[in-house]
């Protein structure tokens, strides 16, 4: 049996999870929630993480009913993400690894999402749509790499949603995306927005500028409601994502789609993806918010795979990195 503890804190969530051979023993998490109209800044987010990380770590051990000596490896997020929060989490991971005399393992955050999605859904070799506040990528596995077939050329889809929520002062509790999703259900009118798919890539910054500009005018003149805008934005963004996912599937001859990342728990996105999958006779795999949204177990799971294939990270190589592409990692645990 191999037990891995994983530390995640690359954005506004801080989580510690423990995995024993594919079984999630514990996975506590805290979210740094800012007031409506405000995003989360690196230094404030790091302060939040510093304040709760030891409590979350203790919870993870207690819930799993394990002692430090039961753990085989300490995994943490090496990147990508915001610098100050990443350092906070890495410091605690390095310190406990040394206190407990356990090997350390730096994990790519995106790989964490993919491996957790594969574990939970048992998808074998899916085309992966990874959508969150910081990342938007369509990924397929080939020859020891998760290859990026398409991605955003500017901001992430979740960032577009989050920033739209700020403009019209939607609450960030529990998350701006969740609140947009609920409001969109009440939307009646489709407001036409720019649709920007460029080959296999997508662009969201122009859509954001357009809706930021249009929102004020249209809302004050009662041309549409905030709910209509939420609905229209979701329909437009998600159509773009479904289009590039479908094109990647056609390229790879793939019959499986796995959606991961925080935006992946949006039911409307899953519904739209399901329509496309049905038309192609393909299968859709997705997880709920406990595993879609950043969490410690996903880092533990990717760490488990890496550790079992013989990888460890020396302390001197354990620096964090804000930029760390999914395809930089050699996948030593798959054929």
């Amino acid at each position, binding site marked *: 049996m191999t037990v891995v503890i994983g530390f995640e804190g690359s954005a506004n969530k801080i989580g510690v999870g423990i995995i024993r051979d594919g079984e999630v023993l514990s996975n506590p998490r805290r979210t740094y929630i800012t007031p409506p109209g405000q995003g989360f800044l690196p230094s404030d987010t790091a302060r939040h993480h510093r304040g709760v990380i030891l409590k979350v*770590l203790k919870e993870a051990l207690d819930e799993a009913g394990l002692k430090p000596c039961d753990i085989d490896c300490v995994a943490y997020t090496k990147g990508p993400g915001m610098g100050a929060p990443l350092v906070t989490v890495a*410091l605690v991971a*390095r*310190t*406990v690894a040394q206190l407990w005399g356990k090997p350390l393992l730096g994990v790519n955050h995106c790989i964490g999402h993919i491996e957790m999605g594969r574990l939970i859904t048992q998808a074998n070799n899916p085309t992966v749509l990874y959508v969150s506040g910081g990342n938007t990528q369509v990924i397929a596995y080939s020859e020891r790499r998760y290859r990026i077939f398409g991605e955003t050329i500017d901001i992430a889809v979740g960032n577009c949603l989050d920033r739209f929520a700020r403009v019209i002062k939607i609450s960030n509790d529990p998350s701006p995306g969740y609140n947009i999703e609920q409001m969109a259900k009440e939307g009646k009118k489709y407001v036409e927005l720019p649709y920007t798919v460029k080959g296999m890539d997508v662009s969201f910054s122009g859509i954001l500028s357009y809706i930021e500009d249009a929102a004020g005018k249209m809302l004050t003149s009662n041309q549409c409601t905030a709910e209509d805008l939420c609905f229209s934005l979701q329909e437009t963004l998600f159509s773009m994502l479904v289009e590039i996912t479908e094109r990647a599937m056609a390229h790879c001859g793939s019959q499986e789609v796995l959606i991961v990342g925080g935006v992946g728990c949006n039911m409307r996105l899953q519904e739209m993806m399901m329509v496309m999958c049905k038309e192609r006779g393909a299968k859709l795999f997705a997880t709920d918010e406990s595993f879609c949204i950043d969490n410690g177990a996903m880092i533990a799971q990717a760490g488990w795979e890496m550790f079992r294939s013989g990888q460890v990270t020396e302390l001197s190589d*354990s620096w964090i990195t804000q930029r760390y592409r999914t395809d930089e990692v050699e996948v030593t645990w798959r054929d």
Partner: protein
Amino acid sequence: MANGNMAAPSKEEINTQNKLEFSLNVPFPSTREASIALRSLLPDREPRKGGITKKMAISGSTLCVRWTADEARILRVSVGSFMEHLTLVMETMEAFGPPVLL
């Protein structure tokens, strides 16, 4: 640590090369714990490329850190963030230590 001893001697002065200097000595209960702190704090580079250097070493059971910088503003940011990191490492050691025997 044992009594959260952060009141280490420090000085700020302009040396012969016209640089600001800051040094901090942090006592730990043992060499092992000082070394764990050093190895936890060492891997991440200073975010700023130029204008500041930070050197860390162990002397007995004391962690010794020494900065030189061109400007007080840059020095303050680096020392401030180091203190936050050090505090977190010490809190982690208090909560999850002492280190296992090797």
